[in-house]
């Protein structure tokens, strides 16, 4: 699924675009705990949905080959976070939806977990 399609489903706003909106995203992970993400995300080209809003999220995304991050509940990343994401080439989106709803909508639309299971 393309990033643009994901944005549409989540009624989201792109805070920072670092590449082609038609970039393909193949799986999704969601957590506010960075080590859980590092433990369970086993697929590259994934999307992260999180309620945590700081530079650690961008750093973790970079390390785990996550292409884009969605901040839920309209949590806007600060300037430092946006700058780091720009430097690392990670697209940032914001949605007013909760984590549960955002995940549910993408799951219903056919995206699976970045753990590679429960497809």
């Amino acid at each position, binding site marked *: 699924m393309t990033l643009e399609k994901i944005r549409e489903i989540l009624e989201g706003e792109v805070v920072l675009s670092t590449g082609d909106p038609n970039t393909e995203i193949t799986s999704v992970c969601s957590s506010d705990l960075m*080590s*859980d993400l*590092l433990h369970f995300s086993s697929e*590259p080209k994934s999307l992260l949905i999180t309620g945590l809003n700081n530079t*650690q999220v961008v*750093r973790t995304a*970079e*390390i785990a*080959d996550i292409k884009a991050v969605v901040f839920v509940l309209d949590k806007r990343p600060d300037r430092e976070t946006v700058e780091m994401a720009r430097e690392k080439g990670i697209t940032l989106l914001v949605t007013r939806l909760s984590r549960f709803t955002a995940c549910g909508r993408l799951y219903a639309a056919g995206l699976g977990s970045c753990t590679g299971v429960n497809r």
Partner: protein
Amino acid sequence: MTQERHIEGSFHLTGGDFTNAGAASSELKSVLASLSITQEVVRRAAIATFEAEMNVIIHAVAGVMYYLITNDFIKVVLNDMGPGIPDIEQAMQEGYSTAPDWIREMGWGAGMGLPNMKKNSDEFKVDSVVGEGTTVEIIIRIKEGKTQ
């Protein structure tokens, strides 16, 4: 004839410096990504290193991260001046954490650090002396015949 690869370097880590937390692992990941190493190996090395670096930032006063990349393996050694780990076996259990609440609020302290390092390493060693510090050694083998 295959040229023997020998790339090494080190980074100084400062405990509590969350602004630069992860910068060393990020730089090492860039170095690895520039070599003919599979994305999967780069990713495993980056995750193991990042967790080890975060442990130093969270728990220690300071530390040094040293790396060596050869044709066959990536070796990362982290040496810190920290509180040490009284019970390594307990610390290796998934979910066991001694991190304070404010660390958890930043998204860390889930008790997955050491298990994640082990999971992503081919060889993994922890040595610790309470009151002195901890040394973590991570070795990831670079499999032949696979390039990115």
